[in-house]
């Protein structure tokens, strides 16, 4: 689903990613681990072009999204992202956080279709009879879009047990609640994959579990996930692949069983001896 080919990123003359190639398949749970400053976040942020790659290709659903000429916004809708510091929209309530993007994007598409239909009589004037276009069927309304998004958002909130928090602002939530809302905000877009950048490292220890549990249940449902994490136990249990990144390169790629019990490279051995 994602095919990363020789990805490079440098900040000034600092080479942070040095030719990374990897294929992510549908249903993969990939955990990315590595020492601090090795380029894990940068790699993840390049995948949805939050940082523009300075070289290489990222083929996502058949399109090279590292190419500047593609409309990156369209592709990001299918590639969710969850941040270390949650980044819920502070000026929106919990349910608005979840509904905002789906409603905005569908409304935008609806308006586009309406505009096109409106102009159709004019554009058709200049086309020969067999090329005249029929109006796009408009099957929904703005109110309907909103109602659907709201229902979906409520269901997502129920899933994480926070339906009574729908109308509060994020500042009143605990860290674990914020991160779970952030995860379902991504889910509301029905993404093909979600990128997680250390989703639990800003949390108090007692809240790590609730977030990891939610991620586990998503994994069981077959959602594709790419997770930068320091939670080795979680990686061992949930991942089907582990990427070990150091100095901007993939040093090792293996199944979790193999990686944790029998690391190949000296660097990975060294790293594991420190964190385990």
């Amino acid at each position, binding site marked *: 689903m994602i095919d990363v080919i020789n990805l490079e990123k440098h900040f000034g003359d600092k080479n942070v990613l040095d030719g990374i190639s990897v294929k992510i398949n549908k249903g993969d749970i990939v955990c990315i681990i590595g020492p601090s400053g090795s380029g894990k976040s940068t790699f993840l942020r390049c995948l949805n072009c939050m940082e523009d790659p300075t070289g290489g290709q990222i083929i996502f659903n058949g399109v090279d999204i590292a190419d500047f000429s593609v409309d990156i916004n369209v*592709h990001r809708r299918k590639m969710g992202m969850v941040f270390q510091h949650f980044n819920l929209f502070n000026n929106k309530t919990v349910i608005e956080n979840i509904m905002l993007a789906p409603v905005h994007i569908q409304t935008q598409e609806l308006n586009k279709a309406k505009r096109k239909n409106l102009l159709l009589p004019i554009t058709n004037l200049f086309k020969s009879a067999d090329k005249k276009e029929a109006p796009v069927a408009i099957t929904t309304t703005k109110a309907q879009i909103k109602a659907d998004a709201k229902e979906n958002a409520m269901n997502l909130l129920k899933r994480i047990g926070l339906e009574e928090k729908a109308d509060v602002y994020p500042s009143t939530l605990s860290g674990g609640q914020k991160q779970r809302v952030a995860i379902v905000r*991504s889910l509301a*877009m029905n993404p093909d994959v979600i990128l997680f950048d250390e989703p639990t490292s800003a949390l108090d220890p007692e809240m790590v579990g609730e977030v990891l549990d939610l991620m586990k249940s998503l994994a069981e449902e077959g959602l594709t996930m790419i997770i930068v994490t320091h939670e080795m136990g979680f990686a061992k249990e949930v991942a089907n692949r582990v990427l070990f990144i150091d100095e901007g390169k993939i040093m090792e790629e293996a199944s979790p069983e193999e990686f944790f019990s029998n690391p190949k490279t000296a660097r990975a051995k060294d790293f594991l001896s420190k964190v385990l």
Partner: protein
Amino acid sequence: MGNFDVKVQRFIDIFIGKQAYLQVLEGLQNTLTIAIIGLIIGIIIGTLIAVVRIVPKYKLLPRVLNVICNIYVETFRGTPIVVQLLIFYYVLLPLLGIRMTGLEVSMLVFGLNSGAYISEIMRSGILSVDGGQMEAGRAVGLSFGTTMIKIVIPQAIKNILPTLGNEFIALIKETSVVSFVGATDLYLVFNRIGSSSYEFMVPYIVMAFIYIILVLIISAGIKLMERSLRKSDRRN
């Protein structure tokens, strides 16, 4: 000073007896209109300039716009507002063949002028919003512009509300120069009352009081608004 009560009596005769209060109300209305419309235009222009300043400058268009904004801001901050009023009223608009009343020109010029100041306020307001807000918006597939409008700018405005309030108060006080282009504001009305009675002391004192009361009311309004906004942060 001995005949102060006579002066007061004379003022009251004109103010009530000759119904000068009607003119005062008109002047007050114009003062407020210029300040409010000026502030609204200023916020719109200021926000646009602030966004231009913040957009990444890889491409040519943002760079060109940035230069234009710089010239704009420097021009309006580098000249007194009276000069701007006179230039617009007597030079620029006649040259362009646009006819506007003194009141309309005042609203326009005060808007353009405060836009230059508000752009700096707004820029620092936008920069004070955590960068993660923009990233989160972009990550769900919203455009830079949409995220700015729906997420970042509302939070920026909230952060700079006290400063915007001060800008509004400054505008109200500065409107006292619009009589240069013939707009009837508080100053002009009281000046007229003074000249018709050959007595300026009481009218000017009353004028000063009206300005002070206006400013006090607005300050109180801003405080209320701030408080209710802060509450919305924690609403349960």
